[in-house]
C-alpha cells in the first residue's frame, strides 16, 4: 500500500525512512503535538514549501532546468486567490475561480517561456526566467489597484476554512496529495525520460525523444504545482504580498532547500524544507537562549547574539553543502 502510494520510489535507507516518517507524522499531528499559533504557522509553511521545493526539484533535479521564475508562479497562485477572494463574494466559487485563473495564467506563461527559451543554452534560459520574474515582480508592485502594490492584499476566506485547524488540514492534505502526484510523475516513463535529458540531452534525442517537448511539459508541470502551493500559502496567511511570494530571497531559499535535501530525490524536498523553515523560525530563539546561558563568558554571548542568527544560518548551509555534497538524502542513501 505504502509502496503504491510512493509509486515504488524506494527510500534506500532506514535512516531516511525514519526521518521522513518522523517529519510526516509531526506535520500530520502538528496541531495536537505543538501548541501555539506560531508552531502551526511553521508547520503550514513547511507543508507549502515541501510542495514548492518538490516542484522545483522536478525542474532542477530531474530535468536539469535552472529557472528563476519559480517564485513568479508561486506568486501567481497567491495573487489569483487573493484577487478573487477580495473582489468577488467570499466563497468556494471565488476560490475556485481565482485558483483556476492563476493555473491558466501560469500554464500559458510557463508554456511560452518553455517553448521560446528551452532551446537555448541553460545559462540563457536562467537569465530569461530571471528577467521575466523581475518584470512580474515590478508589475505586481505597479498594478497597485489590482494587487495592493507593496502592501499586498488581505482577504477573507470561506467560512469552512476559517478555523485554523480546518485550514491547516486543507494545506497539509493538498500538499501531501500533490507531493504524491509528483512522485508518480518522476517514477513514470515520463520521469525516466526527464532523467535521461538531465544526463545527456543528445543521447535522449538519439533515442527518439523530442527533448524540447519533454522539458516544456516539465516546466509547465512545475509551474502549475508552484501555483497551487502559492494558492495554499495565500489561503493559510489570508494575505498575499510581494514579500511572501515574489521576493527573490524566496527563490534563493528554494534553491538552498533543494540542494540541502538532495537534488533529484523528491524526498529531499521534505527534509530540505523542514530543516530550512524550522531553522528560519527557531534559530533566533535558540540562539537567544544559548546567548543568555553563556552570559559572563568572554566573547561567546556576543557571538551567539540572536541578531546574528542569519550569519549562523549561513554557516549551517555552508557546512551542510560541504559535508553533504549530494544532499542529505543522497548521503543517507550512500551510507545505507
Amino acid at each position, binding site marked *: 500500500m505504502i509502496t503504491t502510494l510512493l509509486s515504488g520510489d524506494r527510500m534506500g535507507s532506514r535512516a531516511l525512512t525514519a526521518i521522513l516518517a518522523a517529519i510526516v507524522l509531526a506535520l500530520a499531528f502538528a496541531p495536537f503535538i505543538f501548541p501555539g499559533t506560531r508552531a502551526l504557522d511553521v508547520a503550514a509553511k513547511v507543508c507549502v514549501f515541501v510542495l514548492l521545493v518538490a516542484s522545483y526539484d522536478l525542474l532542477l533535479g530531474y530535468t536539469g532546468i535552472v529557472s528563476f521564475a519559480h517564485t513568479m508562479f508561486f506568486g501567481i497562485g497567491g495573487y489569483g486567490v487573493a484577487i478573487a477572494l477580495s473582489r468577488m463574494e467570499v466563497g468556494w466559487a471565488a476560490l475556485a475561480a481565482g485558483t483556476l485563473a492563476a493555473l491558466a495564467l501560469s500554464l500559458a506563461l510557463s508554456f511560452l517561456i518553455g517553448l521560446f527559451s528551452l532551446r537555448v543554452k541553460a545559462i540563457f534560459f536562467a537569465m530569461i526566467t530571471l528577467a521575466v520574474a523581475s518584470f512580474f515582480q515590478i508589475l505586481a508592485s505597479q498594478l497597485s489597484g489590482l494587487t495592493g502594490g507593496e502592501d499586498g492584499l488581505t482577504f477573507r476566506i470561506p467560512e469552512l476554512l476559517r478555523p485554523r485547524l480546518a485550514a491547516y488540514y486543507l494545506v497539509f492534505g493538498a500538499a501531501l496529495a500533490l507531493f504524491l502526484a509528483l512522485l508518480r510523475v518522476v517514477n513514470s*516513463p515520463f520521469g*525516466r*525520460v526527464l*532523467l*535521461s535529458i*538531465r*544526463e*545527456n540531452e*543528445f*543521447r*535522449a*534525442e*538519439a*533515442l*527518439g*525523444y*523530442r527533448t524540447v517537448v519533454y522539458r516544456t511539459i516539465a516546466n509547465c508541470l512545475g509551474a502549475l504545482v508552484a501555483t497551487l502551493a502559492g494558492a495554499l500559502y495565500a489561503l493559510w496567511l489570508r494575505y498575499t504580498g510581494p514579500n511572501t511570494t515574489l521576493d527573490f530571497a524566496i527563490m534563493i531559499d528554494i534553491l538552498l532547500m533543494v540542494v540541502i535535501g538532495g537534488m533529484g530525490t523528491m524526498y529531499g524536498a521534505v527534509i530540505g524544507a523542514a530543516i530550512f523553515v524550522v531553522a528560519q523560525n527557531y534559530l533566533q530563539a535558540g540562539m537567544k537562549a544559548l546567548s543568555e546561558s553563556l552570559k559572563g563568558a568572554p566573547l561567546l554571548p556576543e557571538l551567539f547574539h540572536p541578531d546574528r542568527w542569519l550569519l549562523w544560518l549561513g554557516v549551517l548551509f555552508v557546512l551542510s553543502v560541504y559535508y553533504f555534497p549530494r544532499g542529505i538524502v543522497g548521503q543517507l542513501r550512500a551510507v545505507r
Partner: protein
Amino acid sequence: MPEPLLTLSGVHTHIGHYHILQGVDLAAPRGELTMLLGRNGAGKTTTLRTILGLWRASAGGVRFDGQDITRLDTPAIAARGIAYVPESMGIFAGLTVHENLLLAAREGPLRDERLEWIFRFFPPMKKFWDLPAGNLSGGQKQMLAISRAIVEPRKLLLIDEPTKGLAPAIIQNLIAAFAELKKSQTTILMVEQNFHAARSLGDSVAVMDAGRVVHTGRMADLAADEALQTKLLGLSLEAHQ
C-alpha cells in the same frame, strides 16, 4: 550486392569553421554489416552523426528506406528505425540497466523473448539488471549500449567503435554477439579500428580519407589484399589489431 537501405550522396558537413565531410558517397546494403574504416580524423564518426541528424549536412542527401531524411531532426530520424551506439557508449549512468533498456523501448513494454535473446549475447545485463549503469565495467557498459540499440527490432544500427578500449576477451564476446545479431538480418553500419573484428564481421566495406569515401567493396577482398590496405589505410590491417 543487395539493394541499399541507406544511401549518402555527396554529403558535406561543417562543424563550426571546419569542413569535415567533403562529399561522402556511401551505401549500406540491406541486411548486411558494412564496415566504415579509415584513419583517425577521416570523418567516420561525423558520417554516423550526420546520418542521425546530430550534425546537419550542409549539402548532399541522405536517403533511408527509400525516403529523404536529410532535413529531418534526430528524434524523427531515430523514430524511423535507426539506433545509434556512440563511441562513448552513450549509456545513462544514473539509471539502472533495466531503466536504460526501458528508455529505448518505444513500441511498448519490454518483451520477454527479446530480453532472453539479448541475455544470451550479454549475460551481465541479466545479472546487473537493477544496478545503476554507471557502476558497470567498460565492457558491460558497451554491452548495455548495444543491448539498448537492439532491445526492439531496428532497421539500421549505427555503431561507433564498439571494441575501443576493451579487453581482448570481451572483444571476442562482442564479436560473437554481433555474429549472432547478423543472423537477424539487421542492417549495420559499423565504424571499427580493430581489424580482427572488422574482418570477422564485415560483409562490405567503405574506407574514408579526408572527409571522403575513397574505396568501397567486399570486406573479404580488402582483407585479402595487403597492398590495397597499405594504400588506403597507410599500413596493413593486421597492424591495427
